[in-house]
């Protein structure tokens, strides 16, 4: 066991896979010499050489498009988008090719690759540096979208992602890159993608969250406990595929469900989870599924961001409402 933050853990996962599998290639804007703007890839170019870990030209579409080419030709690219908000030039390559190459070629070609990107708000950043766009990616058939919430999960999930035969969008909650340290198992281990994690058992209400929101829910749970409310917390970990079984089992027990997400409300991940609860646990529900989410607005610049972000108060407000319904 070793104490790590999420940056260390992701770096460790990349290190392990680069050492183990010669087909793994890591690149993106400023990931080589500098080790990434968040230092996630620090030291890897020195260790594995600039033919395996390198700086690309500044072009997101080029990065993802070349990764698709590498992947169909047998390499295992792990590329970085500097920020989730900068991925849009690469959208065409993701939607038009990465997500459909296997289907289009009826299984002849596939694009096993990982697109890593920091996402989410709460870091007082410039415009386009705070978005949470996981719902958009979750909506695209053929993609897998995962979000770790702890250093341990970050490592095990990234190793799984690199070993997957699919294209994985691996979204890193940058707000907690360095905020959480924990003991992480040394050496190689994997965490299966698509499996949620019940972080806390409870009986009154189920709260589903992921990424940086898990920590906010944990704070709200303290408030709920003082109010005599017992909360079950599920860390979703995977936006797609989505672990219906874990969600449904929990809702059947508590009879109430609240989702906490950072992105805009409408057509969001919370809406999908609510529908799962309605579909599969309708007769167990004692209150309408509730969503704590961003508003349907652009993430405000830092001085206005507190209006937008989900915190323990917004979460507890919804918990209280739902339990009293």
């Amino acid at each position, binding site marked *: 066991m070793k104490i790590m933050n999420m940056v260390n853990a992701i770096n460790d996962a990349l290190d392990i896979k680069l050492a183990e599998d010669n087909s793994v290639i890591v690149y993106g804007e400023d990931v080589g010499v*500098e080790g990434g703007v968040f230092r996630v890839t620090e030291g890897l170019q020195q260790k594995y050489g600039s033919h395996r870990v390198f700086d690309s030209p*500044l072009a997101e579409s080029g990065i993802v498009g070349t990764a698709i080419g590498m992947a169909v030709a047998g390499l295992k690219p792990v590329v970085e988008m500097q920020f989730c908000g900068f991925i849009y030039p690469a959208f065409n390559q993701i939607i038009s090719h990465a997500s459909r190459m296997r289907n289009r070629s009826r299984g002849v070609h596939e694009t096993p690759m990982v697109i890593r990107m920091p996402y989410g708000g709460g870091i007082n950043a410039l415009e*386009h*540096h705070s978005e949470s766009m996981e719902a958009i990616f979750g909506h695209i058939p053929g993609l897998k979208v995962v979000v770790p919430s702890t250093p341990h999960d970050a490592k095990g999930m990234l190793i799984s992602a690199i070993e997957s035969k699919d294209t994985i969008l691996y979204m890193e909650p940058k707000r907690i890159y360095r905020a959480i340290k924990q003991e992480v198992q040394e050496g190689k281990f994997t965490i299966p993608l698509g499996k949620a994690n019940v972080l806390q058992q409870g009986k009154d209400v189920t709260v589903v969250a992921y990424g940086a929101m898990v920590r906010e829910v944990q704070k709200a749970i303290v408030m709920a406990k003082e109010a005599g409310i017992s909360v079950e917390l599920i860390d979703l970990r995977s936006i797609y595929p989505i672990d219906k079984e874990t969600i449904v089992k929990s809702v059947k027990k508590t009879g109430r469900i609240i989702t906490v997400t950072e992105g805009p409300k409408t057509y969001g991940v919370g809406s999908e989870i609510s529908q799962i609860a309605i579909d599969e646990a309708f007769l167990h529900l004692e209150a309408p599924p509730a969503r704590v989410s961003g*508003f349907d607005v652009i993430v405000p610049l830092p001085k206005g961001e507190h209006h937008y972000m989900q915190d323990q108060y917004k979460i507890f407000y919804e918990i209280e409402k739902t339990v009293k319904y």
Partner: protein
Amino acid sequence: MFNEFNPLKNTMFQVIDNEGKVINKNWMPEIPDEKLLKIYKDMLFARTADLQIVSYQRQGRIYTYPPNYGQEAIAAAAGALIREEDWLVPAFREMGTMLAKGVTLKQLFLYFMGYEDGSKYINAKNTLPISVPIASQLVHASGIGYSIKYNNQDKIVYAFVGDGGTSEGDFHEAVNFAGVWKVPVIFIIQNNQYGISTPTHMQTASESLAVKSVAYGVKGVKVDGNDLFAMYRAIEESIKICKDGEGPVLIEAVTYRKGAHTTSDDPTKYRTKEEEQEWEKTDPLNRLKIYLIERSLWSEEEEQKIVPQYKEEVDRQFIEAENYGPYPKEDIFKYLYADTPDDLIEQEREYDRFLQWKKEKVK
């Protein structure tokens, strides 16, 4: 100029050398002394402001900021020539041109302090806000150019991008569209040698960035971007081309980012002191200052006197921005649509109810 400094020859257009000596009389622009002095003072003001902002940032009084330090001549030359009716399509390192257009320092401060109000350029006509997604703004410049041509207007678009931005598809699409349409856009690439940590030679295998103009069939030139006279003349010539209906023009302005990419960046990770010292010799303010002193238009004494005044002015506008006040929650909802949809209005009401609850619940 575009023939003499054909990008295929990979020569750089210069008028003065690093010691402020005129080395290319033929192409010396005619700038009245008074105007020249104003340009220098504008550069000095921009530099003073820029250095001060970095120190405010270190004090935690402003968020991430991308310094202009070392690149002042480019923005100042464009600022001296851009007219009220012309369009400015900035990236995010063109303080001098923005100030010339009428954007105030206070507005820039507000923006980097985290208020969208800092992009509400009420005094600066035809100026688009700072564009963070690299190179994406250039295609808008081509569209504005089309509108100018369509409406038969006497206007020019000044569009900026960095060296890294030339790798983005949008750069190529923008220059290509503008070339096909023959619209009056001056694309200015500030080649400050680095896209964050990545040197220009890792962005492209081309000999220069100016040479990319050739492939799109538009005029282009590589200019010493730290030579105010060369920048001024290159833009003047570009204006003529645009007015003759032969635009667009692509200018590669060769410069050096003396500061960090942004205040979040640490250049010691990717470049050497020796390299920085080498480029120091080309400093745009220093070169122009030597020239002005040589011609008795300026003196060290005057500079010593004026810099503290500039600092005071910068501080005054900064403190005004600092006291701008709270960010009203209405502002996150009201600018998205011409008419706010009912559901969004309801989301704001629900937020009101939450705030009321919080007020009662949380001490």
